[in-house]
């Protein structure tokens, strides 16, 4: 008797837990999409707040630049070493140039830039908006007859959309240069062949595909981080949770979206 009752409560508790989590997740997804929609519609409404946009471009872009540069340089360099090791086993060192470039342009450039920016700028966005929420600054904006989505979210959204592709271009070139330097000067691959092979086997689509990915990642980072910050509850602890949540969720979404985008764009 007691066993069945216990099993019953265990079962219903588990169900309630799963149900509760599902409802919360669906609520999050729904509110996230509502915010995304509002952001899009406010983006096209005048006047444009150029000052705020430039400020965010600086925060997201310029300040992420050193980290992105170091990341891209060393990624390109290690890519060269590993490709060389692999290709040497079947005497194909001459073909390593395009492989390094392709990996950089299609995958590592956009994805690693996305991950770094979500850790750096996404966390900052969530923390800033979260603090503004818990100190009633967002409410204050509303009482001053200013739409907080337009004033706070739109500039970050535009910054994410514009800056991610730019950073990716920089990351791509830095990575390719790093790969070239290691290949030619450390591994002694023929420079001329390396460059020619890279040029011959690369397509413009490789570059653009990567940049489209970067735009999507920029949208993911800004919308997720702003959403998490915007709906922060519960003081300093809440801001911490929102920040962690923003970074974890944007990173996961970037990696998931990356697969589907790759399947869609490159096939």
């Amino acid at each position, binding site marked *: 008797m007691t066993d069945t009752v216990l099993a019953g409560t265990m079962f219903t508790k588990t169900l309630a837990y799963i149900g509760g989590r599902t409802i919360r997740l669906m609520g999050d997804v729904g509110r996230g999409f509502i915010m995304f929609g509002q952001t899009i519609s406010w983006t096209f409404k005048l006047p444009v707040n150029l000052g705020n946009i430039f400020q965010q471009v600086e925060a997201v872009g310029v300040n992420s630049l050193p980290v992105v540069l170091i990341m891209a340089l060393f990624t390109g360099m290690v890519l060269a070493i590993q490709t060389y090791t692999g290709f040497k086993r079947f005497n194909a060192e001459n073909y390593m140039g395009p492989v390094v470039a392709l990996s950089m342009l299609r995958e590592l450039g956009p994805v690693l830039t996305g991950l770094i920016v979500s850790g750096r700028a996404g966390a900052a966005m969530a923390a800033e908006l979260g603090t*503004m929420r818990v*100190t*009633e*600054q967002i*409410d*204050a*904006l*509303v*009482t*001053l*007859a*200013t*739409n907080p989505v337009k004033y706070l979210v739109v500039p970050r959204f535009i910054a994410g959309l514009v800056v991610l592709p730019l950073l990716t271009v920089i990351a791509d070139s830095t990575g390719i240069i790093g790969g070239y330097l290691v290949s030619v000067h450390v591994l002694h691959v023929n420079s001329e062949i390396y460059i020619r092979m890279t040029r011959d086997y690369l397509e413009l689509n490789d570059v653009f595909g990567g940049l489209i990915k970067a735009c999507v990642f920029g949208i993911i980072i800004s919308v997720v981080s702003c959403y998490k910050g915007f709906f922060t509850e519960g003081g300093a602890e809440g801001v911490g949770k929102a920040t962690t949540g923003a970074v974890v969720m944007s990173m996961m979404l970037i990696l998931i979206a990356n697969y589907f985008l790759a399947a869609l764009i490159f096939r």
Partner: protein
Amino acid sequence: MKIGRLKPPLPRVGATLVAYFQMIHVIEIVNLHKAFNKKHVLQGVDLQIERGETMVVIGGSGSGKSVLIKHVIGLLSPDEGSIVVDGVDISHLRENDMNELRKRYGMLFQGAALFDSLTVWENVGFSLMQHTTLSKEEIKEKAKQKLEMVGLKGVEELMPSELSGGMRKRVGLARAIAMEPQIILYDEPTTGLDPIMADAINDLIIEMKKRLNVTSIAITHDMVSAYKIADKIAMLYEGRIQEVGTPDEIKRSVNPIVRQFITGSSVGPIKAV
């Protein structure tokens, strides 16, 4: 202003009557209900505020005072009931119309809620920057004037983080009056200040009323402040207004709930949790 078209077309006598009642009751809260999840915070609040009057809503922490005041400026929308401002029910206004109305409001937040990425004068001139075409210099000049009105000089270029609690509240007040509002809402204006600074804020609230001829709603649990600034005091408890009266009437109240609150006793119908 677009608000006007929301009024029902009335015959002239009716219109005159409406105008007359509008003159008396600037804000009328009718049967206001609000629940968060399962917590029924407001359970039918009725309250009228007359033009030029300072209404102080008192009540314990968590009694729903903040929720009430947030309804008046459209930060929250009611589950049931209405808030009528100048004859317009604002509870279901579209955002554009609500924003037009909000330009006639000023609100001072408990923690001042200054934008910490902007300087003091940019904070004060925020709505001027957003809603007028004035030049930067003109806005700065106006901000300076408002800051002087609240007794601050030479702080324009500072950041909010460099100010003390009392100064922040003053800047918050200067920001609230920047657009020359007709209604000012005060959320716990004296909480967290030392008694002298609190009294200075009280004096400012009285001065604002005199100089700008505004209608005000303040929420507080500071009885010294309530007695000093109020034309009328309303006690909120268990989601309803328990009693409304002038400070003298409240002092003489026989309602045990009001008595316990104004004397600050832990013994009585209100349970300290």
